[in-house]
């Protein structure tokens, strides 16, 4: 049985992902997500696999190296103030 995703859930997830959706977008995503999640549900049939993790941590000393200048780092920001990024109010 598919988890039917309703408009309320889409709006909740959109809120978590910081996306504003118009009402018609919500309607479209409700329909499409039903079909996509139904396809994903076949993953429930996948057996447990006994795999050795082949990941290792790669460490190096933390050394100061050449990097972007402050001006270069700020160059793509819409607004800056006193050499810093400017953002909206936090509250």
């Amino acid at each position, binding site marked *: 049985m598919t988890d039917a995703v309703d408009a309320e859930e889409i709006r909740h997830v*959109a809120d*978590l992902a910081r*996306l504003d959706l118009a009402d018609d977008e919500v309607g479209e*995503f409700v329909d499409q997500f039903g079909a996509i999640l139904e396809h994903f549900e*076949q993953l429930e049939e996948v057996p447990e696999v006994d795999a050795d993790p082949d990941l290792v941590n*790669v460490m190096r000393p933390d050394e100061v190296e050449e990097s*972007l200048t402050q001006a270069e780092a700020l160059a793509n920001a819409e*607004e800056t103030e006193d050499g810093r990024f400017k953002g*909206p*109010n936090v509250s």
Partner: protein
Amino acid sequence: MNLNAFITETDIEGEAGGPLDGTTVAVKDNISTEGVPTTCGSRMLEDYEAPYDATVVERLTEAGGTIVGKANMDEFGMGTTTETSYFGPTKNPVDEERVPGGSSGGSAAAVAAGEADVALGSDTGGSVRAPAAFCGVVGIKPTYGLVSRYGLVAYANSLEQIGPIAPTVEEAAELLDVIAGPDPRDGTTRDEGADSDYAGAAEGDVDGLTVGVPRELVEGADDRVVERFEASLDDLRAQGGETVEVDLPSCEYAVAAYYVIAMSEASSNLARFDGVRYGNSGGFDGNWNETFAAARSEGFGDEVKRRILLGTYALSAGYHDKYYKQAQEARSWVKQDFDEAFEDVDVLASPTMPVLPPKLGESLDDPVQMYLADANTTPANLANLPAISVPAGEADGLPVGLQFVGPKFGEETIVNAAAAVEEHGN
């Protein structure tokens, strides 16, 4: 004829005297190139100019390559047709009513049309191989860790690799030689690509080579594609290769596993686009969350929103085990299946794409159908393995690509096998 292969045309000259001296290169527009726009095909980054070069761009220009343009692509690499680009679709130079494949569609179209000698794309679930197949050129997805991702704008970083696109196997391998090798700026790179000679492996000597053919990757394909694929296998056998059927039952789950993992990683990676440090700004009125949401809703297109939402959903409490954890199990299973197959065969062969290039506008309305077009390419990304798409003739006047997947760091093997198909293709 304007294919819309480039988002930005450039003239960045390389150093004289290297192996790519005199070679023109198209670079996918999600690969950072200092001082020119790097848009990722998105309105979000329409005005973004990268302040530094990706490692592969440094290596290209040091080798003498001239970068002639930043190539069009599906927005943030999310698509299989290059139709999700904010800058409009790229046309397939073989048939301008059809898509070039994606997401590196601009790169493949530029090479196929001669607008660049060679190109770089990136391949997260087939994004180098799909457009190579649809445009009738060669594309390589390297083993994970062979090529530095430093400066590649991340979509799903556990899956993606930058890879070459070229008219011939040897030229693709030569470009791979230039970009491969360890990079201290990407901790996932490995030493295997240092001092490589993949171009030298393009001999097409398949005498005694064992080619496995996974039933699961042939059965679902269009009959016209299968016919060309079978003809190429006949050619390989005539050259002394042996073909054997193999079973990769895990591959039935590859598309679902790939999309769950890619979307989950995308939802996290694309959280950085808030319009403050770079990208489309949401302004400075209202609070933090409202302005970020405004910036993102305006800057991202439908497919990107779809993947961010689904990824957020798949990782959310109550659904994580059902989707994300199961997708990781499937990924382990795919790896294990390939490992077992390579105990008996040297390479695996399948059609690259199960379909011929669709017409522009046909694919976007049904996301599940579009995702299923990646059935044969996603397994190599899940298993971190090298894969190549090589032209295997035409059906109804449209290119068909054959894919070889090799064992980990087996680039020489797939390059050699692909050269044998290329010589006998028509």
